[in-house]
């Protein structure tokens, strides 16, 4: 028996088609994946299914009830977790759970059996405010809240974006255990390992359903998107012997809490250095100290030859930076953004104009020179942001989760740009939650609880911890973490 039936569903916003004639069925008790690049229409599909939007054409039923005419019945039977953290940040964990329970006319105790597997992990923080939890914990809480009323269908819109590999694994283990309660799960994800956890997946692209099938089937059929060939990395040719980053006993404390707890490492010129760690391990804080945004509490460090305590303004002259939140101005055009940042670094108008054209030519962006950044797809924005951050030929570029939320093919293109920069002698300092990207790095460090637990080339680390790939190395180390939040 089918739990969800979608027939020729269409939805447009003004002239933009978000979904075009999409049809599929989901069986009861199935784990169904919806995959596709940014802007494929996944969120629109979710909102249609939970009756938040009205379709322009076609029909759909959820648990036997029509999404247009039987809104109330549908709403009673679904659990929905929107892409963004749908929690009240100023309420505590317990308060959030209780509130969502009463919302559905039940109590946290009654629904406790369903959520036990998940909630027991965060129960010790029940008096902490949701806003103070780490990304992975927030997602676990949001999942608990969506499940507490024992829905028959669970709709999850990218529940693991921005969550570290260990938390992601745990979250999926929980989802699979929920399945045993007979709950149907529809989830979307950009991670391939998660796609493989689904029983069937649907591939959406630009509002069209391109294919449905088992994960292996779909991943193979659309290998150009999901499974691009690995990147040829010419390797250590460009790496020089001198260090551009040297850090000794660096500490950053906020009150009693040591976010970064005595780390020491060095990075050589031209190296691609992967800086890994779970959510809340202290990566971003460490990066803020290196880029001169924060003062260290203790310890010393030199970046591009300048002291991070006293010479942070000189450091800023020699680095580029791309943050996980978008670092370009949405309301400026591509050319205007480039011009602004180039101008800030003291380039003159002719140089800017010439180099802008060169860059856009290389990125195949020339047609979009005068388009607003806000109108570009996510993957393009990221490529552009990276190109802008190295436009002034810095010694080092810092990338804070530069590829969150995009499909494998786009990520691969992004890494080609990184290699290109590295070949020109720019040192790359990058954080990521994708373990396949970790393998692309020359050298990586893994942070756990504010300390660096391992450092070396990917091959060395795999050997040292006797694990088949980086994913297992990371999981092995991150499971030792005792602190769970920043």
């Amino acid at each position: 028996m089918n739990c969800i039936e979608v027939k020729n569903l269409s939805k447009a916003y003004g002239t933009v088609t978000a979904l075009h004639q999409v049809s599929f069925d989901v069986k009861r008790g199935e784990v169904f994946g919806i995959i596709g690049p940014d802007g494929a229409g996944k969120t629109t599909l979710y909102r249609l299914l939970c009756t938040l939007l009205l379709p322009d054409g076609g029909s759909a039923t959820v648990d036997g009830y029509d999404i247009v005419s039987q809104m109330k019945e549908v709403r009673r039977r679904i659990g929905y977790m929107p892409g963004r953290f749908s929690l009240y940040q100023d309420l505590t964990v317990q308060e959030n759970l209780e509130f969502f329970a009463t919302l559905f006319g039940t109590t946290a105790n009654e629904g406790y059996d369903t959520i036990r597997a998940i909630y027991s992990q965060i129960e010790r923080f029940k008096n902490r405010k949701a806003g103070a939890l780490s990304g992975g914990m927030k997602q676990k809480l949001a999942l608990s809240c969506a499940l507490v009323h024992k829905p028959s269908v669970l709709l999850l819109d990218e529940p693991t974006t921005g969550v570290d590999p260990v938390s992601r694994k745990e979250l999926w283990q929980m989802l699979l255990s929920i399945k045993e309660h007979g709950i149907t799960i529809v989830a979307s994800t950009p991670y391939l390992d998660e796609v493989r956890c689904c029983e069937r997946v649907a591939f959406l692209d630009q509002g069209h359903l391109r294919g449905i099938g088992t994960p292996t089937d779909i991943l193979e059929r659309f290998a150009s998107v999901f499974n691009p060939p690995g990147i040829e990395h010419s390797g250590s040719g460009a790496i020089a012997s001198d260090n551009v980053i040297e850090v000794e006993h660096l500490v950053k404390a906020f009150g009693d809490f040591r976010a970064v707890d005595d780390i020491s490492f060095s990075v050589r010129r031209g190296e691609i250095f992967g800086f890994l760690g779970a959510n809340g391990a202290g990566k971003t804080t460490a990066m803020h100290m290196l880029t001169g945004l924060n003062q260290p509490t203790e310890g010393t460090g030199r970046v591009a030859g300048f002291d991070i305590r006293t010479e942070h303004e000189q450091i800023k002259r020699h680095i580029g930076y791309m943050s996980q939140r978008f670092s370009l101005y949405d309301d400026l055009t591509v050319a205007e953004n480039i011009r602004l940042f180039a101008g800030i670094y003291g380039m003159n108008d002719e140089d800017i104009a010439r180099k802008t054209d060169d860059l856009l030519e290389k990125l195949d962006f020339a047609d979009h020179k005068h388009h607003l950044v806000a109108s570009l797809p996510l993957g393009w924005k990221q490529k552009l942001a990276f190109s802008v951050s190295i436009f002034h030929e810095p010694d080092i570029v810092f990338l804070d989760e530069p590829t969150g939320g995009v499909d494998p093919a786009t990520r691969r293109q992004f890494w080609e740009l990184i290699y290109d920069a590295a070949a020109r002698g720019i040192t790359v300092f990058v954080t990521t939650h994708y373990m396949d990207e970790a393998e692309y790095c020359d050298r990586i460090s893994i942070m756990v609880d504010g300390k660096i637990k391992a450092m070396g080339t990917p091959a060395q680390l795999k050997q040292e911890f006797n694990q088949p790939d980086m994913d297992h190395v990371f999981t092995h180390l991150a499971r030792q973490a005792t602190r769970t939040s920043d």
Partner: protein
Amino acid sequence: MTLKYLIQKEFLQIKRNAFLPRLIVMFPIVVMCVLPWIMNMEVKNVVVDVVDNDRSTLSQRLVHSIEASNYFIFGGLKPTYADALHDVETSKADVVLVIPQHYSAQLTQQRAPQVLIAANAVNGTKGAMGSAYLSQIVNSSLPATNNSAVVAQLNLYNKHQDYKLFMIPALFAIVIMLMCGFLPALNIVGEKEAGTIEQINVTPVSKWAFILAKLIPYWIIALFVISVCLLLAWGIYGITCQGNIAWVYVLVMLMALFWSSFGLIISNYSDTMQQAIFVMWFFVVSMLLLSGLFTPTRSMPQWAYLTTYVNPMHYFIDAIRTVFVRRGTWHSIAHQAGALLAIGSVMAAWAVNSYKKNS
């Protein structure tokens, strides 16, 4: 040099905003077209009830002179004071004039009759103005006695007693305050919320360049806005600046310096736009009320009067009225302009200092 690119960026962002360009053009126009009619404390149409206990020729002459005055609306003759008071209670009348029983007899005997004026003083201004005018009418209807000297009144500067002439320069202050105060207050918080400020903070841009790039667009907007206001004042109301118009521009620039810096300071200390607006609103209301825009600062109690020494709005309003209405020269406003410059510079320095690139 980098300043050029930063300023360009600010202007582009203002231009791209769906709302700001319209606001910048429409706001001064709406303010100048509507507010002078509203911010009019002229007391008109005061309704007077008369209780005439004398019913003589002289008392009727007094009643006629009230009826004839275009300042008052004659509410009618009431038999008793209680009846008239009832009218006041039901808001049908504002002032009651009671003429005593032996009014004309006492007048002819050269004695002072005791006329009673009772005014509804819930609205203090209306009550005070109504009874002040009414007592002037009563006094002038009395035959000149030998013990009161002839007293004349000469109103300087505002001969037609036009309230708009008094209020329009003050409106400049309100326009500059809202345009140059609120918009910058939202600006940096906006970048904080969008996350772009982090990107700027890792570039070698100096604090001064960054803050100046934020301030300069608002100064240019202030120049534009004030020119529109001056033109409208002349076009709609025929009100022009009595003194040298250059001083108006100097004062406006000083005011813009203060408000834009102040807006940025609040922006630097706020995490969300909501907080920025609330805090800004709090300061704006307090400064405005204590500035002497509506009521004379000299009437305030001592503690409130002391705050005017640090209130730039007070200096600005004083000075701009001096130039605009009283034909003041540089000498007349030097003291206020100096104070504005001092406060403005301190605020600008504070704005730069409170912006942290490294914490």
